[in-house]
């Protein structure tokens, strides 16, 4: 990947701000869903959908597309927002999120929502699914790549480590895992509920190439993905240090916003902070 211009970086940052507004409004209109982990992953997902992934919104099932596997399915508001802004379906449809008869299910459904690559909701399955995709690409000698976004809470799930072993066994260098290391899971801090550190050492010991970045710094995200691409013979995991609820001061690092929508009043303040004109 060539050096990214400052203008491009600004554009991506603006885009991420827009997606954060969507996340807040989507969860607010239905008073449910998971804003916190959607906002922590927002810059990563933006970088992927608006700079990295080779996908075609007019042909979502294009066989040679890159695959983005959202393993932490509860963060689907960020995925839906990115897909809509990328043109996979109309932006107004975002406001049907979690409503009856909507294509935008509370957790992602495969085959219904254009651009969604996997069903998720039960944590811990996505990396294995990504391994399967990566193996298929290799068998077919295809250049498309697989990106799997994992939560840090998902590091508690045994299957994540089953997948880590398998990806290392098969030297899947077409697979990049990104861990949204926001330090919080459903009920509190990861280090209290189930300590993970030293997390990078664990992945290294499992045979992975490990990178650590600031998951809210566009330049670092793109550089990390670049480095993952050029690393051969091993899968790469990018541990992206993030903040749950990132972008809205009163939501940052607040456990409650894992699975709670904003009130009317909070939504106004949040959107104002993100620079959106209040409706």
């Amino acid at each position, binding site marked *: 990947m060539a050096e990214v211009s400052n203008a491009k970086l600004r554009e991506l940052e603006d885009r991420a701000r827009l997606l954060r507004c969507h996340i807040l409004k989507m969860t607010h209109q239905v008073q449910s869903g998971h804003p916190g982990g959607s906002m922590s992953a927002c810059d990563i997902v933006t970088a992927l959908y608006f700079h990295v992934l080779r996908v075609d919104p007019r042909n979502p099932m294009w066989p040679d597309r890159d695959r983005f596997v959202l393993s932490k399915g509860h963060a689907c508001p960020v995925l839906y927002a990115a897909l809509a802004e990328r043109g996979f379906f109309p932006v107004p449809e975002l406001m049907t999120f979690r409503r009856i008869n909507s294509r935008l299910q509370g957790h992602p459904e495969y085959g219904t929502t254009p651009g969604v690559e*996997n069903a*998720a909701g039960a944590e811990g399955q996505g990396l294995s699914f990504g*391994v399967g*995709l990566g193996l*298929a*690409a290799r*068998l077919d000698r295809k250049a498309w790549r697989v990106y799997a976004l994992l939560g840090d809470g998902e590091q508690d799930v045994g299957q994540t480590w*089953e997948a880590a072993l398998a990806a290392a066994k098969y030297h899947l260098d077409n697979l990049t895992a990104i861990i949204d290391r926001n330090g919080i899971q459903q009920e509190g801090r990861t280090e209290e509920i189930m300590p993970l550190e030293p997390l990078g050492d664990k992945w290294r010991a499992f045979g992975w190439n490990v990178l650590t970045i600031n998951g809210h710094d566009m330049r670092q995200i793109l550089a990390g993905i670049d480095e993952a691409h050029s690393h051969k013979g091993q899968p790469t995991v990018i541990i992206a240090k993030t903040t749950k609820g990132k972008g809205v001061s009163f939501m940052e690092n607040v456990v409650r916003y894992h699975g709670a929508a904003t009130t009317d009043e909070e939504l106004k303040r949040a959107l104002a902070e993100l620079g959106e004109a209040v409706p």
Partner: protein
Amino acid sequence: MKMESQRSYFAKALIELGEKDPNVVVVGADTTESIKTLDFGKKFPDRLFNVGISEQNMISIAAGLAAAGKVAFASTYAVFGVAHTYNIIRQNVAYTKLPVKIFCSHAGITVGPDGATHQLNEDIGLMRGIPNMTVLVPADAPQTAKCVHAAAAWPGPVYCRFSRTNFPTVTSVEDPFAIGKSYVMRDGDDVTIAGCGIMVSRCLQAAEELDAAGVSARVLNVATVKPLDTSTILKAARDTGGIVTAEEHTIVHGLGSAISEAVALEHPVPMAMVGVQDVFGESGEAFELMEKYGLTAAKVVEGVRRVMKRRGR
């Protein structure tokens, strides 16, 4: 009767399939030699993935392969392949409608000496309860091979269960096989005996004994438990007025339950169910266990007597 290995036929069919279709891949979980998927791996080394003792991983990897256009078989012992992995199958395979073919050996009580931890008598119920799943229970070794080919051609997810133990061969390689069809193995008007898996051979034996006593029994091989061939089953209910089901599986939510649901809704007739009675198994040789847990021709005959008495024939 000739006794043959379902695993051997399974393995041979997989290789035939692999030769015809380069998209066929197999994922295993440290049991590949035992269930003979290793034969496929020897032939096609880059298309067998042994992921070790990680069955959840096995299922999701197979789903990922299927999502990228592969015909993915996931194969191990039933208790690990479908009980240990229930919610993975539910989310990554069935909800996703991906063409993952879960073929599990060592189902049922005929696992034998390994005991109750390894004898899964609940798999038919577990799998038929999930939307989008297709559930196959071949009666013998030749039919197991046909299941492999039919499953590969079937667009959605499939679960096929078979046994560690050699089964009496009751079908021939020439017999037709299609997913969703039940087959009349022997015609009769007085009563219907509907079995799956190894119990088909016991049903045929029971029908012989009944014939000698002047009772003409129709025997159905219900090789597809889901989607159930309701037209053949309801016709049998109408023609014969009573049904006995027989399965090497718990009677709680298996073949007997599936048939009774269909019959109760459309044409209720007296029924009896032969199967494992909501208990765990134990160690023993397969045929000793079948005797002890009531999976015998004699139990089928007993069921027929009860059904005929209830309807006053």
